[in-house]
C-alpha cells in the first residue's frame, strides 16, 4: 500500500461518520484527505490529533493513526508527538472552541514555535458538541443558548492572531468552496512549518447559515475575495470591486473608480499585508479573505531546531550517561 499512490478513499476508515447530515465538517474532511494524499506519506506514518468537539471526532473517520484527546490540548499533544517522532506527518484537527477558547494558549504557542504540524481549525463560530453556546469567534450580538440576549464579547480573528505570532503559513477556506479547501490543505500539507488552516464550516443545527452572507448565490461574491499569489485582488459578483492600499490599511473600491496600477497584487510572502488581509471583515466594508494569506517557509521549525541542538551537543560534549553520572565531585569507598 505504501508503495502505490494512495487516493483520498484510502484515507477513509471503516467507522460510520456521525456528523449531522449537512454538517460542514464533511467537506473539510474531504479536503484534508487531499492534503494527505499530496503529502505522500503512507497511512501508517500519518497521525491525527484532535481535541474534543464535533469536529474533533475527525480522527475516527480516517485510516491513519488517530488520537482523540482532551478539550483544547491537541496542539500541545501533537507538539510532543512531533518532537518525539519528526518523521510522522502530523495533523491537528480542532474546533473554534477547542482552539480559541480552552485551547487558546496552546494554539498561540504552537504557532509561535513554528512546529511542523498541519493545523486545521474548523470554525463554525459555535460550540457544536455541547449543543450551541457561543465561542470566541461568534459574532457580537449572536444569540446562542448561553447568550440568549446576544453575545457581548468582541469576536477574535484566529488568522490575524496567528500572523501576529509569526505564523509561517496562514490560510482560510470555507466548507462550501471544496476546491479552494483542497488547495489549502495540499499546500498546507507540503509546507515545512506550522500550517494554520482556518476553514469556516456550517453547523446546520446550532448556527445554521452563519457564513451564508459570504457564499450565497446572489451577492455572496461581494463579501469575499479569494487570494491567489501574484494575482490582482479583484472580487464581487461581476468582479466589480478591487482592493487598494490605504495608508497602512486596505480599502475596497469599485474597479471602475480605481487606477489599474493601484490594485493590490497578492504576495504570499508579505506578512504585513497578510495581517491586514486576515483582519478584513464585511462590517468594515471589506471582503473576507480566503485562500493562502501567507506562506513562507524560510523560518526553521521547532522540531528541526530540537535535533540541530541535540546534534550540536552530541558533537560538542558527546558524553555517555555513565560519564554524566560519574562526573562532578566523586570519591571511591
Amino acid at each position, binding site marked *: *500500500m*505504501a508503495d502505490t499512490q494512495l487516493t483520498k478513499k484510502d484515507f477513509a*476508515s471503516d*467507522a460510520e461518520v456521525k456528523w449531522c447530515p449537512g454538517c460542514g465538517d464533511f467537506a473539510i474532511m474531504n479536503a484534508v484527505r487531499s492534503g494527505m494524499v499530496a503529502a505522500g506519506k503512507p*497511512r*501508517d*506514518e*500519518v*497521525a491525527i*490529533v484532535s481535541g*474534543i468537539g464535533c469536529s474533533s471526532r475527525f*480522527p*475516527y473517520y*480516517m*485510516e*491513519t*493513526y*488517530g*488520537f*482523540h*484527546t*482532551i478539550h483544547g*490540548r491537541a496542539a*500541545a*499533544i*501533537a*507538539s*510532543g*508527538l*512531533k*518532537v*518525539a*517522532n519528526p*518523521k*510522522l506527518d502530523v495533523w491537528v484537527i480542532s474546533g473554534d472552541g477547542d482552539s480559541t477558547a480552552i485551547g487558546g*494558549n*496552546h494554539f*498561540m*504557542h504552537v504557532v509561535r514555535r513554528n512546529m511542523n504540524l498541519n493545523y486545521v481549525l474548523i470554525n463554525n463560530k459555535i460550540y457544536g458538541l455541547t449543543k450551541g453556546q457561543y465561542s470566541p469567534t461568534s459574532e457580537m450580538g449572536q444569540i446562542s443558548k448561553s447568550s440568549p440576549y446576544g453575545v457581548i464579547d468582541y469576536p477574535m480573528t484566529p488568522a490575524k492572531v496567528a500572523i501576529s505570532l509569526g505564523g509561517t503559513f496562514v490560510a482560510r477556506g470555507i466548507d462550501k468552496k471544496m476546491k479552494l479547501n483542497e488547495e489549502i490543505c495540499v499546500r498546507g500539507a507540503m509546507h515545512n512549518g506550522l500550517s494554520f488552516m482556518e476553514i469556516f464550516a456550517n453547523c446546520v443545527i446550532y448556527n445554521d447559515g452563519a457564513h451564508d452572507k459570504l457564499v450565497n448565490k446572489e451577492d455572496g461574491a461581494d463579501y469575499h475575495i479569494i487570494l491567489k499569489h501574484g494575482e490582482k485582488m479583484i472580487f464581487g459578483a461581476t468582479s466589480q470591486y478591487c482592493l487598494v492600499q490605504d495608508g497602512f490599511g486596505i480599502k475596497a473600491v469599485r474597479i471602475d473608480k480605481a487606477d489599474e496600477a493601484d490594485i493590490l497584487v497578492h504576495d504570499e510572502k508579505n506578512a504585513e499585508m497578510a495581517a491586514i488581509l486576515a483582519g478584513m471583515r464585511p462590517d468594515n466594508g471589506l471582503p473576507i479573505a480566503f485562500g493562502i494569506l501567507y506562506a513562507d517557509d524560510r523560518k526553521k521549525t521547532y522540531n528541526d531546531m*530540537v535535533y540541530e*541542538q*541535540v546534534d550540536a*551537543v*552530541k558533537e*560538542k*560534549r*558527546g*558524553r*555517555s*550517561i*555513565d560519564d*554524566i*553520572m*560519574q562526573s*562532578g*565531585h*566523586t*570519591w*571511591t*569507598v
Partner: protein
Amino acid sequence: MAENAKLTSAEQIVIKFTGDSGDGMQLIGNQLTALAALDGNDVNSLPDYPAEIRAPAGTVAGISGFQMCLGDHKIYTAGDAPDVLVAFNPAALKHSSKFVKAGGMIITNSDSFTEKSMEKVGYTSNPLEDHSLNGYDVKAIPMFTLVREALAEMELPIAAKDRCKNFFTMGVLCWLFNKDKQLVLDFIQEKFGPKAKKPLLKVAQANTLAFKAGLNYGETAIMFQERYDLGAAQIEKGLYRNITGNDAAALAIAAAGEKAGLQSFIGSYPITPATDLLHYASEMKDVNLVTMQMEDEIAGICSAVGAACAGDLAFTTTSGPGLALKTEAAGMALILEVPLVIVNVQRGGPCTGLPTKTEQSDLLQAMFGRNGDSYMPIIAANSPADCFDATYQAAKIALKYRTPVIVLTDGYIGQGSCPWKVPKMAELEDLRPYVNFWVPEAHPGEKYVSYKRDPETLARDWAIPGTKGCQHRIGTLEKDINGAVSHDPMVHQQMTEFRKAKVDNLAKVLPDVEVNGKTSNKVLVISWGGTYGAVKGAVDRMIDDGKPVSGINLRWVWPFPANLGEVISQFDKVLVPELNMGQLSLLLRAKFLVDVESLSKVQGDPFREYEIIDKVNEMLGE
C-alpha cells in the same frame, strides 16, 4: 595551646550553617559533605532557604541554612539539634541559636557583629558579649580580620577576600573534626586550579591561603579544647558522589530511556521546588533526553502524553499546584493507557502555599485528584539518592503496565543531597523487555487490536504511529476493545474494572515490606517518602534502647505491598508520622480498618527523630 586539644571520639555530629542567602551555605555544606564522605563517614543533609524573593541581606527573613549530620554509621536524617552551629552574622545567630543542643558549640564571625547589623535584627546589645549565650560554647572568630591578614599579599578586592571566609571556616572545621586537609586542598585545585573547567587561579590561591589560615587557627587558638573524631562508617564499596533528589531523578530519566532503548522526553513547566530537575535534564541533550519547556503545566504533561503516544519514554515534572493543573491530562494518559511518569516534588500547600518548604500533602491529590474512578500506581522516594531508583522503577512499571505512574518526592529530598553510590549503566535492569511495542512481524496472521490485554499484567497491546499497517484510532471517551467509542453499559463497567485491576495487580509483584525490628513488638511506625530517614533513625535508636518498636517504609504507596495488611495486624498500635494532616493514615484506615495514629506536622520542615521517639514513648505509655 590547642595542640593538646582533646580528641573525643563521636558516633555522629550534627552541624548547621546559617548565613545570608548570598553567603553560599549550600556550597560550604556540600564541601563538608564531600570531605566527610571521602573520609568514610556517612552524611545526610538538609538545606533550608527562604522564599524565592531575595530578602535583604542581614535580615532574619533572608537567612539560608544548611544542616548536616556526619556519622560513623548509616545516617538517615540531617539530625535533630545541632552540636555545632556556624552562624556567619548576627541575623544568622538570631535565626538559629535557639536550635543548638544545650552545651553545643556556636562558631561566628565576630567581625560581622557591627552596631548596624545587630540593630537590624533587633539585638540591643552584643550577644557575643552580653552573656545571653551562656550555656553554649561560643567561638567568636574575627574571620574577616584573619582572612584579610592571610591574603594581605594578594591583589584582590576586599569583597573577594571576605568571600574566602568560607574556606577559612572549612579549615577550622577540618581541624575540629580531624579530617584530612589534603582532600580540601585537592578539591580547591580541582574546582579552580589550572585543570578546572573554568580555571580561576587567583581564587584557587586565595582559598588555599584562607583554608590554611583556618586550619592554623584551629591548631593555635586557645579557643578549642576539644576535637571530634568520627570513625569511618561501614559503607558499601564503590564510586560515590553527592547528589540531590532532583538531579538523581533527572539521571534516572536519562538512564531509563537508554535502558529501554527509547528516547527520553520531559514536557514540563518550571515550578519550585521541581525546577532543578528540569535544569539538570536540559543539559543532557547529548544522551537522547529531549526536554520541552512548555507554556504551562497542562501543555507540559500534554506534550509528554504526545511523546508517549509516539513511543518516547515520557515524563513530566512538577510540584503541587502544577499537579493540580495536570489532573485532567493525567486522566488522559490513564484512559489511553500509555506509559507516563509524573514526578511531583511536593511543597507546602494548599494553593501557592509555601513554595520553598517541604511537605507531603499531595498524596491524596496523587491518589484521587482526577475525575472519575482513576487509579494510578504511586511510588515515593525516601531519600535524595533513592530518587534515582524510584524514578527508574516508575518508568519500568509505566512501560510494563502501560499506565501513568506518579513519583512523589518533596522539597526536602528533591533539593537536599546525600552521598550516592553511582550505578553503572551496564548493571541497571534492562527495560527493553517491557517496551514490547506491537509489531506485525511478531504476530504473523494476527490483526492488531488496540485494547487487547496481556492476561497477567492487563497491559494493552500497543502499536505506535509509524508501525507498518497498524494504523488505528484511540481516544479519551470510553471505548471497546478495538478503541472504538462505546456507550455500552457493560463495556464501561468492564473497562473501569480493568483499569482498577491493572493497578491492584501490581501489588502481586511488588516486594514485600520489610520490618525493621521484631513483628512481636508493640508499636509499628510506618514511614513513607521523606519521613523514612527520621523514622528509621528513631526506630533504630529505640530498638537499641530495647523498646518494643518496629518500623516499615512504604516505597510504593499505591497499591500497598501484598503483605502490608498482615504485618500491620501483628502490632497493637500503628503510628504514621506524616508532613500533612494524616493522608496516608486515611488510606491505611480505609484499607485495613486499623485505628492508626497519625503524627502530623505541617511546618515546612521534616521530622526530627526525637519527635517520633517522643510520640512512640507516649504510645508506649512512657
